[in-house]
């Protein structure tokens, strides 16, 4: 009797990662202690822009326990490449030299001026105050619009401008589209600067590999393989002398997709002093030194007919890069430009982006990286258009959806979506949320003048994931391919090792990749161990970011495992003395078609292969196969989100009552993990919409420089999440998977702000900037009431104010 083999993909297999994490046995970088290890601490600039006129570290050297102290000049020869940027997005892109420790000028608060090496972290930190530094303050520019004006202070005098690059892309005749429009919506949105805040701060340990010429760096990173090559480019140390290990890593959210100046200094000092060196940071240091996210000014125009058909879109963007270019800084906003059309079809598009230097911390990838910016703008503008046309926002969206298409379909900016089917997702969402019922409740609250009003905010989104096809990435100016590598091997005992170039830091790849390999090989996930995060164990990899791990790395695992099965099948045919074409494989067992009693297990085949004594002619021993998968296209997950808010019109407080999401990421490998990714993604999107903002004052001081001042939402601030899915496979890979890591963040932010505006639209509110904190919401209500009162002399009945009576609103 044969039993149908169990299939693990699609099931909520409990996470293999958990036992170490819940018992306190994880291997965080900061847990590493080595004999003779020294600690370092940094002197950081208290000015956003200044000349260093005097610098003397000798006072620190006199302190007990201090071993060494260095200035930027002392170490400048150690990092000829500085902190490298990995993207040259335009021929004339301005790229300042980014020294890990400055030599004569600081360009941001927190720029590193000197480093102290001591026996422990308390001693190193104490000694910082004995380093003498004199600064001569220079003019500061913190506002990106000011920065590109004639005569603005220059962040880098030698570049002659604060504009890093300007890029334009156009598709179709956008002017013609606007000329024939009945309605034009013109809006300005602000993507505020945010602080990524993985709960584990950065930490790095470097030591010389015993017995050989080379160095080992343990570091809290998403990208050990990228760090290896970029560190080599920075320091000139040959790449084959560098081994990078990402041990357990406590979240990244894009912010650990980098090589940081502190990592370079730690590496250089361990080399120089010949001892293990540890650096770890405090949160306030993290908020200055780790990249920031978003920070974009968005001018967007939509052209449409009077019955709500979109005709064209113009987008003009300013991206605040801060003082330097980190690894992918110039690519983030630029990569998002083509996504501004979102899930809609229309005839013409033009987009322009200018990257700007300011005296602030550099920006770079933050969960979504370019796509949340795009989705936010188009989804806000769609709601604005719906209000202007007095159309239901769901109906307006439905009317303009691109597709459906099971295969490639080109968006108005010229990007090729892999597959798209929005309407079933929207239908499911509206049913799940009881859209009609919510609208009725909203009407009742309006009619009864309830001080707490109900908001219903929609967004329908897509994103670009699965980074990515190497050729397309090269076209964007990225200096590295987007493939992913996996090696799958069945050992002599029948156990399986899967080496993957992805580098999880919370995503559960050990579990999901085990499921993939188990299904391919006919074993159980418990038979599989996943090896990752060490460049010595996994020689090639492109790591984890951009929702790439499943659609590129997971697919590589699947293909490598299937390659193992192919080879095993040849050997099984040899062992069973049958033709290969007659061999069937199911549930881990090879059998001869028509003679099920003639069979061998894949474990038996592995044993035979390892022994190597009796193999088909020309076959090499061992069952070990590697695949490097380079996808033919990006993937484009999509979905529909609905945020229900209760907005207290008297206090301005916004409460997210419910959040509904229908997401389509193709077939799901592990539903539990996918749901978790969505929960966290939605939470992070709500955090930007409602709570978080990195605030700089005009002198370039980060006012929100600690967790006291920067509001990460806690459990009381966030809702429960009601999730559903539709399944539209991606034709770009054999698993059909699209990626899910960023979807929640991309869909939720516009849904939340649309919801707040929707709650207040009957009061004349048409716009609110993020974050929608109580004072912001309350002020917006007061302004709307004032406007409404001003135009309706003697009539303060705000509930009657409508679009028609409110001048100077959202559109032309």
């Amino acid at each position, binding site marked *: 009797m044969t039993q149908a083999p169990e299939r693990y993909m699609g099931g909520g297999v409990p996470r293999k990662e958990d036992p170490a994490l*819940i018992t306190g046995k994880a291997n965080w970088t900061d847990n590493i*202690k080595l004999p003779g290890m020294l600690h370092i601490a940094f002197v950081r600039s208290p000015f956003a822009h200044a000349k260093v006129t005097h610098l003397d570290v000798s006072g620190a050297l006199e302190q007990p326990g201090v071993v060494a102290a260095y200035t930027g000049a002392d170490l400048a020869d150690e990092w000829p490449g500085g902190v490298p940027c990995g993207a040259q997005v335009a021929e004339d892109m301005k790229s300042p030299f980014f020294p890990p420790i400055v030599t004569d000028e600081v360009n941001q608060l927190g720029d590193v001026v000197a480093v102290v090496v001591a026996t422990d972290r308390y001693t190193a930190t104490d000694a910082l105050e004995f380093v003498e530094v004199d600064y001569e303050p220079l003019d500061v520019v913190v506002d990106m619009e000011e920065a590109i004006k004639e005569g603005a202070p220059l962040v880098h005098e030698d570049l002659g401008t604060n504009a890093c690059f300007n890029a334009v892309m156009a598709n179709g005749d956008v002017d013609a589209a606007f000329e024939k429009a009945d309605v034009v919506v013109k809006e300005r949105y602000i993507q505020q600067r945010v602080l990524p805040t993985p709960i584990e701060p950065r930490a790095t340990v470097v030591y010389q590999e015993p017995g050989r010429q080379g160095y080992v760096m343990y570091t809290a990173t998403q990208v050990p393989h990228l760090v290896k090559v970029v560190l080599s480019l920075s320091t000139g140390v040959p790449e084959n002398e560098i081994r990078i290990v990402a041990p357990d*890593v*406590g*979240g990244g959210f894009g912010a650990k997709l980098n090589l940081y100046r502190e990592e370079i200094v730690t590496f250089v000092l361990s080399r120089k002093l010949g001892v293990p060196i540890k650096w770890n940071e405090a949160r306030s240091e993290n908020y200055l030194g780790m990249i920031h996210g978003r920070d974009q000014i968005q001018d967007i125009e939509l052209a449409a007919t009077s019955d709500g058909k979109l005709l064209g879109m113009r987008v003009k963007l300013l991206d605040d890069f801060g003082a330097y270019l980190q690894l992918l800084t110039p690519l983030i906003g630029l990569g998002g430009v083509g996504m501004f059309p979102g899930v809609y079809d229309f005839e013409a598009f033009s987009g322009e982006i200018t990257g700007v230097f300011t005296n602030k911390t550099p920006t770079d990838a933050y969960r979504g990286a370019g796509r949340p910016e795009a989705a936010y703008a188009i989804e806000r503008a769609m709601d604005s258009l719906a209000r202007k046309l007095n159309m239901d926002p769901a109906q307006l969206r439905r009317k303009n959806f691109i597709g459906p298409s099971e295969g490639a379909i080109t968006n108005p900016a010229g990007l090729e979506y892999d597959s798209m089917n929005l309407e079933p997702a929207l239908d499911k969402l509206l049913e799940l949320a009881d859209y009609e019922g919510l609208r009725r409740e909203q009407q009742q609250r309006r009619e009864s003048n309830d001080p707490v009003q109900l908001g219903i905010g929609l967004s329908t989104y897509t994103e670009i994931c699965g980074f990515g096809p190497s050729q397309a990435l090269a076209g964007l100016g990225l200096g590295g391919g987007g493939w992913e590598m996996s090696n799958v091997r069945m050992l002599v005992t029948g156990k399986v090792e899967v080496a993957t170039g992805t580098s999880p830091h919370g995503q559960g790849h050990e579990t999901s990749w085990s499921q993939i390999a188990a299904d391919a090989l006919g074993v159980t996930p418990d038979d599989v161990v996943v090896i990752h995060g060490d460049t010595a164990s996994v020689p090639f990899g492109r790591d984890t970011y951009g929702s790439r791990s499943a659609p590129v790395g997971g697919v590589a695992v699947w293909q490598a495992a299937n390659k193992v099965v192919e080879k095993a099948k040849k050997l099984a045919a040899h062992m069973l003395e049958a033709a290969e074409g007659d061999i069937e494989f199911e549930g881990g067992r090879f059998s001869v078609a028509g003679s099920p009693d003639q069979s061998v297990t894949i474990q038996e085949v592995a044993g035979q292969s390892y022994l190597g004594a009796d193999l088909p002619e020309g076959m090499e021993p061992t069952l070990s196969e590697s695949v490097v998968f380079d996808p033919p296209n990006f993937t484009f997950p999509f979905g529909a989100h609905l945020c229900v808010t209760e907005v207290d019109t008297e206090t301005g407080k916004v409460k997210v009552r419910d959040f509904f999401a229908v997401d389509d990421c193709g077939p799901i490998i592990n539903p539990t993990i996918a749901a*978790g990714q969505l*929960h966290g993604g939605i939470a992070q999107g709500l955090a930007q919409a409602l709570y978080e903002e990195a605030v700089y004052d005009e002198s370039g001081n980060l006012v929100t420089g600690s967790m006291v001042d920067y509001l990460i939402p*806690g459990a*009381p601030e*966030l809702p429960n999440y009601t999730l559903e899915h539709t399944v539209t496979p991606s034709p770009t890979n054999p698993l059909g998977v699209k990626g899910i890591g960023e979807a929640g963040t991309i869909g939720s932010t516009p849904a939340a702000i649309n919801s707040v505006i929707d709650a207040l639209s009957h009061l004349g509110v048409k716009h609110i900037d993020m974050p929608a904190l109580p004072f912001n919401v309350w002020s917006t209500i007061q302004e709307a009431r004032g406007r409404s009162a001003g135009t309706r002399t003697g009539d303060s009945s705000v509930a009657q104010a409508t679009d028609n009576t409110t001048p100077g609103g959202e559109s032309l």
Partner: protein
Amino acid sequence: MRRIQMTVDGKPHVADVEPRLLLIHHLRENLGIGGAHVGCDTSNCGACTVLMDGESIKSCTVLAVQADGREITTVQGIAENGEWHPMQTAFHEQHGLQCGYCTPGMIMASISLLKENPNPSEHEIREALEGNVCRCTGYENIIKAVQQVAGQAS
């Protein structure tokens, strides 16, 4: 330097420490407890939460000398006879963790919560965990884990 003694996860420890040394650093650096974490420098994140004489504290706001003579319990000391504490099991079963960095603090705060309030409402759980920040899970599955231990069906 001052001599202090404390029991950590059932084991007695004597040490000479600087009066300014934070308990979290004493646990991590001197006693090798890797399962209590540091996520901020302002007592906001809760990653360092442990129990002192059975009550949850943020070990970054307590000096090592203040813990003299006390009993400290970390996530490394709550399993019994090799069996996970029910809260550990619940976090695993409810997928209440992703990167796991906030998790030890979250588990200890949750244990303390149920000790004080064995049958909390969802609202009470959310309020009680206010001082523990998680960036990965969006909290829902953490709440479910606490409800599971409280015997509430989710």
